[in-house]
């Protein structure tokens, strides 16, 4: 009887794992000893980090997408059929179409979603760039912006933790190039007492903000937005007026996770080294879906995926786990339209970002294209 590997989620994590398993289990696939099935939500695979460039017209929308089928190895069985209920006792996943998929090994890679609706007034009063529709609207608003007060507002939890800093620096460069920077004030708000979760990044960003004339307010957790009066209020009892509000909305995990009783907020309790759902030995969790206190970022998902590929392939072929995830995260940081830096860290090694350079910026632009090789498991 073939071992059934079922991957729920066709985003970055699910796709890399499925393709990686094909490479490692080629012999078993040929012998029909294993099957790999992916259940996804969309026909199109989106490169989410590219959304950062959409508000500034710096990327063409079609560059963000590939046909999901073309990104997956042809040996993978792929269904566009969103999961609606995961029953770990019965080892099965029910889907929107009424199908039921059984598994021996399950990978949960259902990702995260934006929840501006959890803060009163935010959906009506704010712009964001973390999805395509929001990024398009923000582009239109920026086209019409001719000066005033912009608030860049960050909420917890959110993915891609450096993107709020990136969008702020890019806004400055964009508004300078349009000649409206002198009529603009940017205020950046952050939930904790510094400008970024990573202390060295915060220590680097603060003098950069000071130099650029970007203002900031820390310990700001959004309570509500008054879209009519254009005022954003915090739990810390601060009210800020704005002309344009750019928010990073709070995130939740996928509804199917909470609906299946697998984790509050849609985050699955996960062992930080084995990446197994706590209390199980056949359910791996990857990327934003975990509740591990680590950055929700594409690189996190990628490094976790590499670990899961090795462990799952090893379980199938040798009956044992191969290795532990070391907590590695790597993030490029755009520090404007022409320069960038990067930061990496793991559970043992603190981050230490280097000085920004054009070279790193170009490498990030190159990676925006190279990503498609990563998704296919070639890079």
């Amino acid at each position, binding site marked *: 009887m073939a071992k059934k590997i079922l991957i729920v989620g066709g985003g970055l994590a699910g796709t890399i794992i499925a393709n990686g398993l094909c490479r490692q289990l080629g012999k078993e696939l040929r012998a029909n000893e294993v099957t790999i099935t992916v259940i996804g939500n969309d026909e199109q695979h989106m490169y989410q980090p590219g959304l950062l460039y959409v508000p500034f017209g710096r990327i063409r929308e079609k560059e963000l997408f590939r046909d999901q089928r073309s990104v997956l190895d042809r040996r993978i069985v792929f269904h566009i059929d969103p999961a609606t209920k995961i029953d770990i006792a019965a080892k099965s996943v029910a889907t929107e179409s009424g199908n039921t998929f059984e598994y021996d090994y399950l990978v949960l890679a259902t990702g995260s979603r934006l929840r501006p609706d959890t803060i009163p007034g935010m959906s009506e009063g704010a712009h964001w760039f973390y999805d395509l529709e929001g990024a398009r609207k923000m582009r239109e608003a920026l086209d019409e912006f001719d000066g005033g007060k912009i608030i860049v507002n960050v909420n917890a939890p959110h993915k891609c933790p450096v993107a709020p800093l990136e969008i702020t620096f890019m806004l400055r460069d964009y508004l300078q190039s349009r000649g409206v920077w002198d009529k603009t004030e940017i205020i950046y708000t952050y939930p*904790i007492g510094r400008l970024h979760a990573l202390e060295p990044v915060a220590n680097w960003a603060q003098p950069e903000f000071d130099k650029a004339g970007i203002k900031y307010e820390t310990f700001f957790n959004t309570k509500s937005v008054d879209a009519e009066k254009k005022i954003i209020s915090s739990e810390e009892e601060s009210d800020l007026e704005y002309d344009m509000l750019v928010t990073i909305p709070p995130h939740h995990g996928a509804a199917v996770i909470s609906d299946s009783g697998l984790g509050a*907020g849609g985050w699955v309790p996960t062992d930080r080294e084995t990446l197994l759902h706590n209390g199980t030995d056949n359910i791996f969790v990857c990327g934003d879906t975990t509740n591990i206190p680590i950055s929700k970022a594409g690189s996190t998902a990628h490094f976790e995926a590499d670990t899961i590929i090795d462990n799952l392939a090893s379980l199938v072929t040798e009956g044992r786990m191969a290795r532990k995830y070391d907590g590695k995260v790597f993030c490029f940081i755009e520090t404007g339209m022409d320069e960038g830096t990067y930061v990496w860290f793991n559970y043992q090694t*603190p981050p230490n970002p280097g000085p920004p350079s054009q070279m790193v910026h170009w490498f990030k632009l190159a990676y925006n294209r190279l990503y498609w090789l990563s998704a296919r498991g070639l890079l």
Partner: protein
Amino acid sequence: MTQRTTIDARGSFCPGPLMELIANLKLVEIGDEIEVLSTDEGSAKDIPAWVKKVKHEMVGIDQKGDVWHVVVRKMK
């Protein structure tokens, strides 16, 4: 009945213990407690400062070896 959730944020550089606490407070009921485990010495100052600012309640801070156990009660 009061529930207590534990966040193991040891070695978490990003998003870090306080950001994890803020995110998790949104998922629990008023009156529930969250215990944050942190190896970041700053947590022993940052977390109480923020908790006081937003008017939640500090239940306790305890250092066991190099790990701080910070317990907070959601009040609103």
